[in-house]
């Protein structure tokens, strides 16, 4: 985001236009700025309110949550609720499984997608055009459409109930390959690859020592993106994870809701636990993530 163009109606532009009438312009500018900030703050508050509310409810007793009038402020039940959830449902186990699934999926996607993208961007080989077109067409195939046959396939493979059913099928995807191919084209000079070849490096060595390091920005973005997507995946784990001892966070949370609807404080505490790691990861990587999401999404 460094090479940013001067903004729409930027202060500079307005100043240039209004320079003959400084005082009114300054006042108008101030009003505009206040209105702008006020509008954005409405949006920010609406965005963040559910998180506040989630927090507030997880600190209340069930009776407070269901009570009337509505109790708007946090209470002191947070630890009691959290302890209640953790001692009644294996949420930490689900948390661990979610980390295993999302983490290994992200790593696999980063590896396979960057390798394929490197190849598509930098090498010619017979059938390349056709293969790449096929890859583009697979964009059209949405994942959640084939619940039944995928389930039957998993049952034939003996993967029903196993975490590999959530990891292996998505280990390489068209979106990531496409995205990283863009990065390759813009950030990986051919001279480097050429000189690696002159030095006698083979294909994989070139990828490993030149391609991957040069692509790390895009690869890291893809990793976070994949991690978040997988973390929030709901319908497929809901179908495939039949063993009550092997759950990921989302289905575990939905079960918590239906199982303890009489103890809503627990449910909210559980929801809070499931939301926090992701928000932390996002905030840490947010600058980079937001900068790339537009680039990624626009091509997705």
């Amino acid at each position, binding site marked *: 985001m460094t090479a940013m163009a001067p903004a729409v109606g930027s202060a500079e532009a307005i100043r240039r236009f209004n320079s003959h009438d400084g005082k009114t312009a300054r006042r108008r500018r101030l009003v505009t700025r206040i209105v702008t900030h006020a509008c954005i703050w409405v949006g920010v508050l609406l965005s963040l309110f559910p998180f506040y509310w989630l927090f507030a409810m997880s600190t209340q007793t069930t009776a407070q949550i269901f009570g009337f009038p509505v109790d708007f402020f946090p209470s002191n039940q947070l630890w009691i609720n959290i302890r209640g959830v953790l001692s009644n449902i294996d949420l930490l186990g689900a948390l661990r499984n979610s980390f295993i699934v999302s983490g290994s999926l992200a790593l696999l996607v980063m*590896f396979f997608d960057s390798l394929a993208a490197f190849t598509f961007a930098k090498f010619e080989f017979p059938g390349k055009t056709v293969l790449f077109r096929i890859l583009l067409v697979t964009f059209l195939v949405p994942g959640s459409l084939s619940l039944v046959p995928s389930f039957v396939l998993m049952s034939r493979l003996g*993967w*029903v109930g196993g975490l590999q059913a959530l990891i292996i099928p998505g280990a390489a995807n068209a979106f990531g390959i496409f995205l990283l191919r863009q990065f390759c084209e813009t950030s990986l000079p051919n001279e480097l690859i050429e000189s690696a070849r002159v030095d006698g490096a083979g294909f994989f060595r070139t990828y490993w020592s030149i391609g991957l390091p040069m692509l*790390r920005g895009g690869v890291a973005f893809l990793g976070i993106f994949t991690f978040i997507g997988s973390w929030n995946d709901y319908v497929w784990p809901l179908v*495939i994870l039949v063993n009550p001892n092997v759950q990921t966070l989302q289905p575990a949370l939905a079960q918590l809701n239906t199982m303890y*609807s009489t103890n809503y404080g627990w449910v909210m505490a559980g929801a809070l636990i499931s939301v926090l790691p992701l928000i932390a990861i996002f905030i840490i990587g947010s600058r*980079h993530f937001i900068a790339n999401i537009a680039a990624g999404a626009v091509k997705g």
Partner: protein
Amino acid sequence: MAALSRRSLLTGAAGLGVLSLSAALSACSSPASISAGTDELTLWYWPRSMNPSALKDAAHGIPGTNKRLNAMTPANTNWDTRLRTSLAGNADVPDIVAINSNVSLYFFDEDMFVDMNKFGAQSFKSQYFDWKWSYGETPSGRMCFFPIDSGPTGFYYRADVFAKAGLPTDPDAVSAAVRTWPEWIELGKQLRAKTGSHLLINSTQLFNQIVNASPERYFNRAGDPLYTRPGSAIKDAWDIAVTAIKAGVLGNQQIATDQNAGWVTGKTAGHIEAVWWAQILLDTAPKTKGSWRLASQPVRAGNSGGSFLAIPHTCQDPEAAFKFITWSQTAARQAQAYNEVQLFPSTPAALTGGTMKDASHGFFGPQDSLAFFKTQAETVPSAFISPYEQIANYFTTEIANVEAGGKDPNRAWDDAVNETNQVLRKHGVNV
């Protein structure tokens, strides 16, 4: 991206190379039985569906076998989805499983379960209520579902709210005031007018409990639909529910959280349910303890809930599983189960054994809930639950549409009948 060094990326990538390889190699199959290769038998049950002491004892070893019991409590909603998914996926299937009163759902796939007659189940038959035992036998005569508890129902009500409305509060007086459903609705109207409270959460609950108390249900044994016949029990229940909706005595609470809020706040001052519901109510609205009472529901008591134990075909040691089942469901164990978790027995001997105690601990004020449900149990009718009931569940959906969506009752009834028939035809039943 300064935070991410080239080295850490490479290390990560190297790690993942190993990881993906090992994942590919070790992607071994989940076993069909969840406890394969152990000396355990795994039971799936939901909280308060089994006798806790029996489970504790069996965890050290099931008497007469060399197996130990591993009791698991998976989430209890979509119970059948979980069990059927694991059966269809042939993975992580438990060795013993509790199934609710809707066992007929599994009749089409009875091969998925072990026939307990192979181990001499018939010799236990005389110990249990006839109607309960016959629910567990498949149409082809296999005994796949062994009785746990039964669920005679009653009319729960808030005596304090009734008093505020100037209604009778004494259980006998309330029972006498609601001998018929029109009387019950009339009572609800007065309650609503004076206090604004509802008599029951919603129309689905009312409709289902009327059906549960009826000797005639949706289908006969031959699979013929009965609901289209003139004067059918289903249509009667439907009409009562519609009248109750129009009288405004139902709360139109379609979602669990709303229902809970209704009981906590007293906006809902009544319920019709079996004995096991008292504990749920206590958990939801502990502060209402002491103000609830039990009265006989109109016409006669029904059976709601009451579960069974089954042995899936993947079980490693079905004989040991059967031994556990019979050992955990003796009259003495069932009496203990009532004392511990209010599971109403399915063996008459437990009721007369004298070891059962009123376990309500003042939840119903001075009223003895055990004595109450014992009396109710005597009026529960036998009925036939057809497997098609589970496929054709449109009546309850449509009655909810009348209540919540304001749908015309006649149109809703016609839709329910048509949709049900359509589904039956799809599954090859001639209607």
